[in-house]
């Protein structure tokens, strides 16, 4: 695979893609997110780190409304996600509207979640053809181009169970990209992979960084240092600290951040 790591993207301050305001989330009596505020600008790569159970994955899943927030607002491209305002009251959107919003947000899952009854190329074509109503031949050409981009042109007609974990995750990234999203969410994309396959997935993600707005929940420090503009540290449902990667890893300000880093770096 031919991958060159781009320099970190220039940020355009006027272009806010994601804006979260005072986001709270409860699972029953469990208060998982406690007033999260976050802004992500166009082409920015934000890596969210934090201990397990800190709420970082939950927050990511709230951005495309796979989880419902209890209070607060999340805007993507200026549109409130999952809800609309009716006389000051937040009302959940119709399923069709939520689906339309999700089509603009790509998501990559920890466990890949490829469709096992479809080949690699069919996995990638499915949503463009069924959701965007793209012509099949155009969708197929686009899918093959994306497969080549993630280095899997020769795996076009393989079923997911014929691919390695790393290959499946690269197909999953291509599948999300096929919808031409304005934002990509990565939920621990390498934590279900065998160590020797992590690199190939991170390489694809590094190549995307700079041309795509990305929010990545991951502890991969190498990726964060190479591709992230900002690291956000979440603990117990709150953002504790955020900083550029070099500063975050070399000079953390908060005691909890230092404790966390010492645990993952030992």
């Amino acid at each position, binding site marked *: 695979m031919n991958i060159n790591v781009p320099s970190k993207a220039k940020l355009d301050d006027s272009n806010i893609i994601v804006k979260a305001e005072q986001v709270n989330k409860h699972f029953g009596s469990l208060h998982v997110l406690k007033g999260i505020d976050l802004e992500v600008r166009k082409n920015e790569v934000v890596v969210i780190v934090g201990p397990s159970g800190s709420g970082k994955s939950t927050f990511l899943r709230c951005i495309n409304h*796979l989880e419902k927030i209890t209070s607060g607002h999340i805007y993507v491209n200026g549109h409130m996600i999952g809800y609309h305002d009716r006389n000051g009251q937040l009302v959940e959107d119709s*399923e069709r509207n939520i689906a339309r919003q999700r089509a603009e947000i790509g998501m990559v899952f920890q466990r890949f*979640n490829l*469709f*096992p009854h479809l080949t690699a190329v069919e996995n990638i074509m499915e949503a463009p053809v*069924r*959701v965007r109503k793209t012509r099949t031949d155009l969708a197929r050409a686009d899918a093959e181009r994306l497969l080549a981009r993630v280095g899997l042109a020769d795996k076009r007609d393989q*079923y997911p169970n014929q691919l390695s974990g790393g290959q499946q995750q690269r197909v999953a990234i291509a599948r999300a990209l096929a919808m031409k999203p304005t934002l990509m969410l990565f939920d621990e994309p390498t934590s279900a992979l065998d160590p020797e396959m992590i690199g190939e997935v991170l390489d694809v993600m590094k190549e995307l960084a700079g041309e795509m707005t990305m929010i990545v929940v991951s502890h991969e420090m190498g990726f964060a240092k190479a591709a992230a503009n900002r690291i956000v540290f979440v603990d117990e449902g709150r953002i504790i600290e955020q900083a550029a990667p070099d500063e975050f890893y070399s000079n953390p300000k908060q005691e909890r951040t230092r404790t966390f880093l010492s645990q993952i770096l030992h």
Partner: protein
Amino acid sequence: MYHFDWPIFFNYIWPPTAFQDPLIRNGLIATVIVSIVAQVFGVILGLFAALGKMSKLAILRWISDLYIWYFRGTPLLVQMALLFFGLGVTHIYNFPDIVIGAVIITGAIQAGTLALGINEGAYMAEIVRAGIESIDPGQMEAAKSLGMTSGLAMQRIILPQAAKVIIPPLGNEFNNMMKTTSLMEVISAGELFFGFNQVNARIFKPFELFIAASLYYLFLTTVWTVIQARIESGLGERKGIERGPGMMQRLFSGRGGEGGGH
């Protein structure tokens, strides 16, 4: 010592001679067609009931629960009698004979098929639901994250995968269905068992005739078992799922845990 009437027996198990009696020939055709129609109807009803049971809308869940509860909790024979005699006497619907060319579909056949289908739907609902619930929830999440509505995701992503789980028990249900059509005898629907019963009323050879009748059912279920094994091994080869039990095991082992007699 009972004198077994071999000529009568052979006359009624050997199709060329047995089919000279229209009661047997038409009865066999009716049994096969009624089984297929009732099973198809049952699968469709079962799919809707399963989706209803998993619906966000409470009213749909209640309707599905009520349907499944009633039709699994009461005897099929009673349901059939209720539908045919009960509805008939109210004049809500009398099940008039339908004539299509030379074929007459009697009211009893219609009512019996309907009852078998509705009853089957209640059992299929659980099979379909179990099939859908066997699919990793991550599949629905992935489909939704790509902008699919849950209806589209169900149709394109979940049901095609669930089908592989549903088809083996569905095959067993159909096997059962072909035997269960014999209950229609009580409403005088002209299926296979009714045919043999009519012949018996004429010549009174119940031992010979009912052995012959049983062998026809055995033939039908055995043919189906062979077809079912072909279908399942075809599914397995294409999508890499586990192979089902072998032919001998299917024919001679007891029924698996699911279903049970209706």
